């Protein structure tokens, strides 16, 4: 992970990017669910060794947000599971 493949700009230096954390499920409606489920949505994020789908922000480049799969042990970028 020295170069990050931005879908708009191609492979660029990792210092141009900010990590946006693991990709999120769509934001649920907090009024239509229990407090426990809402707290769970807010606090529990994926964190495991291996493949993880993440958001990246090309902040010092095109400014776009996009998602990539990365191995959290080797830091290699991976193809999406359906393309592997």
């Amino acid at each position: 992970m020295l170069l990050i493949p931005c879908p708009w700009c191609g492979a660029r230096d990792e210092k141009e990017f900010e990590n946006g954390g693991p990709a999120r499920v769509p934001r649920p409606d907090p009024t239509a669910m229990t407090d426990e489920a809402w707290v769970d949505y807010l606090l529990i994020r994926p964190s495991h060794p291996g493949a993880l789908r993440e958001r990246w922000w090309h902040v010092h480049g095109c400014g776009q947000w996009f998602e990539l799969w990365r191995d959290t042990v080797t830091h290699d970028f991976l193809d999406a599971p359906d393309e592997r």
Partner: protein
Amino acid sequence: MQRYSLFSLARNALTGHRDWQAVWRSPPLGKRYDVVIVGAGGHGLATAYYLARNHDITRVAVLERGWLGGGNVARNTVTIRSNYLRDESIPFYVKSVSLYRDLSRELNFNLMFSQRSMIDVVQTYPRLRDIKRRMLNMDLHGASYEVLDVDELRRRIPALTGGGPRSRLPIIAGMAHRNAGVARHDAVAWGYARAADARGIELHQHTEVTGFERGGRGEITGVQTSRGTVQTNKVAICVSGHTRTLTDGLGLRLPLQSFNLTAFVSEPVKPLIDVVVNMPDSHCYLSQSDKGELVIGGGVDPGISFRRGIKEGVFEDTVTAVLEMFPALQRLKLLRQWGGTLDTASDSSPIVSRTDIPGLYVSAGWWGGFKAIPAGGLTLAHLIANDAPHPLIEPFSLNRFRSLDFVLETGTTAR
């Protein structure tokens, strides 16, 4: 336990050092224990020791996947300090520092604890404001933090020649934290291991916990290991960085994410820096070990990380920042580098708590857990023995997340 002293050294010298006892035993794995501790790192071993010393619970097994003291207790930057922000945090870390002071004598093992002060180099006004706020709160809890002007700062750290008025972020002040110090990390693990073993606790290395046995109410009845199943009603998980690797499979939902903190060490040089220097605006800190190596710590990898080495980008940023402040170090060679995997909670404060599973305890979320080892072990042992939290860790239970009642902490390392 064979006591170490000048006398025992002299006596063993006469017999050619052939009669030293093993530092701890390697007994066969038993069938049943009162308490099983997963992870023979700093917190696991300290917990075992305090279970025996304070609560007379000695049918305890400490299970370790790798070798004793080979995880994060060997992968930190050995800094011990108590300059935190919150009323909940400061007394806990003050206790930990005070336990460290007497620990070498108590364990009869030289931890090389050196209370040499930590000095913050402040380069921005928001940081100065934040640190002064911490100072006022620490005053209330008996921890020392004092402002230094730039002249005094440079007198205390002569090697600090960068950060002058023409640099990008000139130094505007310093803060001295006199309670801070360093200790030898291996000695902390080995000292606790030896003292726990002497009180009858069993240490089992190369014994990986692969699963848990549950009873009818979901309670813990045992652990499955690579060497067979062990029965127990109480299990404490002390596996910093990998807590969720064990707990996710149990259906527990813990608000932890793992990150990787950068550290590296230079070749040894003559005594140059006699305090721990922290540069929070530059995201790095360093101290000099007794061997003369400069121990340098940096920030975190971008994103979740279980890597044990360091990231090139973070490494480069840290080196740049150190050289900006200490230009004299630019020709030093670096000898070793490592990353410590730490799991941090949503509010950056630790978790020492019971869980929803009866009999299962966790000690996790240690962001800078080395300094917390004595107090972490003391309080977790209290929790296991009494099934009620020690007053120092009451704020750090998992219950705080149910109502989003965070203990937001900013006193953690560079981020």
